């Protein structure tokens, strides 16, 4: 960090150039530097005996840009906290670690199937009954799903990739596309046919991308696939809450083993549409009294 501050101080001295401390302070104030800054303090900053907050470094850089300095000339003044490094690549190990940590405490997690707490907070008690009915209609055994996911992700025995033709088909009776109100709850039904000659054991559906955002629906990041023999069929229920924005969103699941390495090519694609016919998603008006 000290290297970074040294570079910022060097950059400040370089940008000031031949200007006197007082002239430089005047220049900053003329170009919208918001706070108080004396030439004495500027001198202490340059010598390293006074510290500035990141916001103040940014304010100095902004004032200099307004004064006509090029963005590149002042970039060194901006603190590191506004520079972000990309994350490490998401490998199967990272995926497993991320979701095993969540699943370890699964009874307390919302991403899974915790409709009671979810509904109380989001839509009120009136809907809880309907959501419960929705689960009952589909015969979803929430506890069984929970245990299966936990057991698969936490299983530390090495996964052996089965030899043979591993293939899948989606039954046309599956319900994978829904049109609902924004933030409404829904359940999708995927009927998956084991069209290969290897049995499916301890498999999971893993969602690509984040489990939720303002424009993407909230669905579980990991779901168990029931063990299915060749030629057999299984049902996977995908509970979720629609996105906040009125838009069309795609959710993609891939099939993985318990260690989060992929089993099959391709994906299961679902779509959640919250667009309302003829109703505009409009820009927010300016707040009252400031127009």
């Amino acid at each position, binding site marked *: 960090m000290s290297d970074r501050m040294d570079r910022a101080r060097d950059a400040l001295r370089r940008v000031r150039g031949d200007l006197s401390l007082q002239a430089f302070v005047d220049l900053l104030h003329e170009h919208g530097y*918001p706070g108080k800054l004396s030439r004495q303090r500027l001198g202490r900053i340059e010598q390293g005996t006074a*510290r500035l*907050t*990141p*916001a103040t470094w*940014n304010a100095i850089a*902004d004032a200099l840009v307004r004064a006509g300095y090029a*963005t590149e000339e002042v970039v060194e003044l901006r603190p*590191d*906290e506004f520079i*972000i*490094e*990309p*994350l490490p*690549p*998401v*490998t*199967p190990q990272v995926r497993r670690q*991320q979701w095993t*940590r*969540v699943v370890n*405490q699964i009874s*307390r*997690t*919302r*991403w899974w199937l915790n409709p009671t707490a979810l509904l109380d907070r989001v839509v*009120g008690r*009136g809907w809880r009954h309907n959501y419960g009915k929705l689960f009952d209609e589909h015969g979803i055994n929430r506890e069984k799903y929970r245990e299966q996911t936990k057991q698969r992700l936490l299983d530390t025995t090495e996964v052996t990739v089965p030899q043979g033709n591993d293939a899948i088909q*989606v039954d046309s009776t599956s319900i994978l596309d829904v049109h609902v109100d924004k933030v409404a709850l829904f359940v999708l039904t995927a009927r998956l*046919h084991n*069209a290969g000659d290897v049995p499916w054991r301890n498999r999971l559906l893993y969602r*690509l*991308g*984040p489990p*939720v*955002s*303002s424009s993407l629906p909230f669905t579980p990041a990991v779901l168990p696939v029931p063990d299915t023999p060749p030629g057999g069929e299984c049902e996977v229920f995908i509970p979720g809450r629609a*996105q906040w924005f009125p*838009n*069309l*969103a*795609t959710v*993609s699941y*891939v099939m993985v083993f318990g260690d989060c390495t*992929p089993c*099959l*090519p*391709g*994906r299961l694609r679902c779509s959640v549409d919250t*667009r309302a016919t003829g109703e*505009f*998603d*409009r*820009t*927010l*008006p*300016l*707040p*009252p*009294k400031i127009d």
Partner: protein
Amino acid sequence: MPSARDLLRGRPRKELPLHLVVNRELTAAMRQLRVAAGDDTAHTIELLNMAITDLYPQARPGRTEYGRTSEPHLVDKRYVLALERGHHSQLPPPRWLANRAVGDKTLTYGSRVPAWLARAYDHAFGADGYLVDMFVWATAALADHDHDLPRLTRNLPEHIPVGQEYEYLAEPLVSAGDELEPHIHALLLEEAERVRPRLTTPPVEARDWEPSAEDASGNLGEAEEEMPEGIVLAGGSQFVAHWVIHNIGRVPWRDRWLFRVGQGPAEASLASPHLITIPDTDPGGSAELRLPIRAPRRPGTYRACVKMGWPNGVYCFPSTLLGLIVTVIVPPDDLTSPAVDWPVR
């Protein structure tokens, strides 16, 4: 008048807050991801601290001394909740709001989010890089807000060299990698034709470049079948984000541009032209916008945000923080054909 259901629930429905500080969008997204991982705050903070330790092994409990750049540290409930609600290390309100009366001051609250914390949230709650990308454009939008009116400090129409409009528009896409595909090339040529007259003929209505409550833009999502949110695309793919926006206010749209907000480095963000034109549109009319984009090669989830503004960079809808968006998922390299649907029988 509250509805019967609200009365039964015992409390009136709250008005949707109009946040005026862009970081509120970022911290709201952080909270949304954290809460999605569990109802138990202590447990989710435990997960967050595990991620902080993964990414920053030197992190210890205790906050950064005041006045220093924030360094990674383990977090507690008080810190996390205050930050997510916009109350921690508060940012000054946007300059354009400073001298105006805002009824509810909490609208101008926003937390300063350190980069390391955005990364840790992303890693802890499986955001797939989405928060890291959002941090980049939220930071850029924050810089825009720090002026008399929200404006960009770079990439304005005046920066486009006359006669080199195509090169200027194509530069972010070309620098990101391979040759442009023919349909992207053709689209950029068309856009360059639209840009040129705007550069050579000065706009005459500069006095009207002020946001107005009479002005409004609406979106019916007609074009989203082509590019739904969360679409999965191979790294390096070139595509066109397509929007149809409707002028549903009472102000004619003249001399307007669509600005890309906070474009990160080409290897880790969606690459697009810095700005494109918006056709002049009278109230009741609609405008079609097509923005060519190239996905980065690095796997992750990326979101591009564009906003409507005038040639001087002033945003037409300063309190609408997101503008138009498009979210794309570049799948991890170990998956085979993740953009191909399983066959239906």
